């Protein structure tokens, strides 16, 4: 993000070049209206005085404005900034007008005009307030514009990154056409054909169901069987999966890819070998839960688990049901219980 302190740049040169003489003229005209027709040195002196006053007040208050912006750049500091800026501005305006009236005019120039108390201050108050308000609103508008631009840029970037994600995704058309070509190439090898069919089933299921909130347990288990087939081709009898699910349970709903993710985690985190076969038990349990359990034989050299998979299941179920996903850790086994949902 842009450093907010660097924003305090005001493009007000023209405003100052025109505004300061204009206000000087206006004030002189208003205060010395009766003497205007004389056009004498007195009037000229008054004009110069008004100019000096306006110049000092404008420039000084402008600096106060800039410093206030600099020290309180954040939007949430606005009220704090405005209070402090107003107090300092008022004090400065008072100081300048009093100095000009009593010290400069009366002591140095010895102009002894009949003046009410703090006449210069009262006179300066309204133009100062108006000019400060203009600064405030122009500045507000500019930062609002900058903000809108930034939001737009952010949105563009967001779309761009989404586009990149999409680009990096393998086109499913290409994937399945390639698998079909591969099927033609491997021809008579029935094991390879069977593997390929399951592989394409697994990918198709992921593509079709990843956006669904729930699927039937039957669909998920058919997919899981294809997934297990692929893994058993790799691990053979070193991976054993047992399922105990009552026929009636197959009609219940489950979050898609949830059982598969648990099986995938079990294979990822544990040793699968001839001496230490990994045994995964998937069973329908009391209170309508589906339990996925495996014997724990953690890999020693294993990249630290990110816990994304399990957390993802917990989050998804948090949106689906009040019932909790239960995680049971034991030195000997690891078990996750996920609630089955009524159709």
């Amino acid at each position, binding site marked *: 993000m842009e450093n907010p302190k660097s924003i305090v740049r005001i493009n007000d040169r023209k405003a100052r070049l025109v505004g300061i003489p204009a206000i000087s003229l206006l004030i002189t005209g208003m205060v010395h209206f009766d003497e205007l027709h004389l056009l004498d040195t007195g009037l000229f002196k008054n004009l110069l005085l008004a100019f000096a006053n306006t110049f000092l007040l404008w420039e000084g208050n402008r600096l106060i404005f800039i410093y206030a912006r600099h020290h309180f750049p954040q939007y949430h500091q606005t009220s704090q900034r405005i209070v402090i800026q107003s107090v300092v501005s008022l004090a400065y305006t008072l100081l300048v007008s009093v100095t000009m009236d009593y010290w400069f005019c009366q002591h140095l120039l010895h102009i002894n005009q009949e003046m009410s108390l703090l006449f210069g201050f009262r006179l300066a108050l309204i133009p100062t307030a108006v000019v400060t308000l203009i600064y405030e609103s122009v500045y507000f508008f500019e930062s609002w514009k900058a903000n809108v631009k930034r939001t737009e840029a952010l949105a563009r970037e967001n779309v761009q990154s989404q586009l990149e994600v999409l680009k990096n995704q393998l086109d499913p*058309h290409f*994937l*399945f*056409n390639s698998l*079909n*070509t591969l*099927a*033609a190439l491997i021809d008579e090898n029935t094991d390879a054909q069977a593997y390929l069919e399951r592989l*394409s089933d697994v990918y198709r299921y992921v*593509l079709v169901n990843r956006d669904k909130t729930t699927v039937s347990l039957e669909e998920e288990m058919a997919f899981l069987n294809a997934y297990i087939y692929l893994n058993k081709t790799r691990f053979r009898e070193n991976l054993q999966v047992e399922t105990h699910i009552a026929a009636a349970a197959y009609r219940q709903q489950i979050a898609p890819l949830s059982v598969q993710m648990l099986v995938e985690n079990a294979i990822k985190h544990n040793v699968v070998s001839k001496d230490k076969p990994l045994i995964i038990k998937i069973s329908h349990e009391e209170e309508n839960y589906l339990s996925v359990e495996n014997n724990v034989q953690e890999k020693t050299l294993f990249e630290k688990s990110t816990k994304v998979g399990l957390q993802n299941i917990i989050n998804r179920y948090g949106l689906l049901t009040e019932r909790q996903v239960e995680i049971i850790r034991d030195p000997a086994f690891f078990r996750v219980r996920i609630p089955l949902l009524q159709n």
Partner: protein
Amino acid sequence: MKTLIIEDEYPAAERLQKLIRSVDETIEIVGVLESIEAAGKWFSTNRAPDLIFSDIQLSDGLSFQIFETFSVKAPIIFTTSYDEYAIKAFKVKSIDYLLKPIKLQELEAALGKFREMRVHASPVDYALRIESLLDALPTAGRKYKTRFLIKQNDQLLPISQDEIAYFITANEMVCLVRKDGKQHLADYTLDELDKLLDPRLFFRLNRQLIAAMPAIHKIHSHFNGKLKLDLKPETTQEVLVSREKAHLFKDWMEG
């Protein structure tokens, strides 16, 4: 049994032929076509086969365009790798399809189903079924329906949109009335037609009528801001356009 394969990838076509032969040696493959263009040539010189296997995405477009041009009187089994929209439409219209990579079991099941269906379905039914698939597909390569297939006894009568005067509901049936006054039952509701027809050529006058522009013979002002129309060919009941629709109707007439 004569079978045609429309497929633009050689290994895929070869594998399909091999699989078909392994299911039933008596199936004769009469051609393997790789594009819409090749299919166009084939269909204009050959009689429809008994069965067609057709890929969806061909090198020069979607195979639906072929069936758009030729009302093919043969059952089609589509082969597709991943066309979500098409698959949805296949399911709705119960049109057979095979997912790639094609599995032997699924091919067997599809051929079995085809043989069963063949007993009581006529070629005209197949053509109508594909026609309704094309109506349901948003990606079928056409914007609006330009042609209707009307079943007359065992014949299929194609009617172009230029021949149509209006569609009118009577006794809960929708009747297609041609400019020459001939009438046919249309197998659509007016709401369906409203979506299918080109809105520049057809206008939904009221709950009973959708008319083509040349059928509007005279327009009279009716009380209460309504319009009363004379259509050609004449209707038995008077045709009114509501006040709300009147200005839309005038805009449409003026183009």
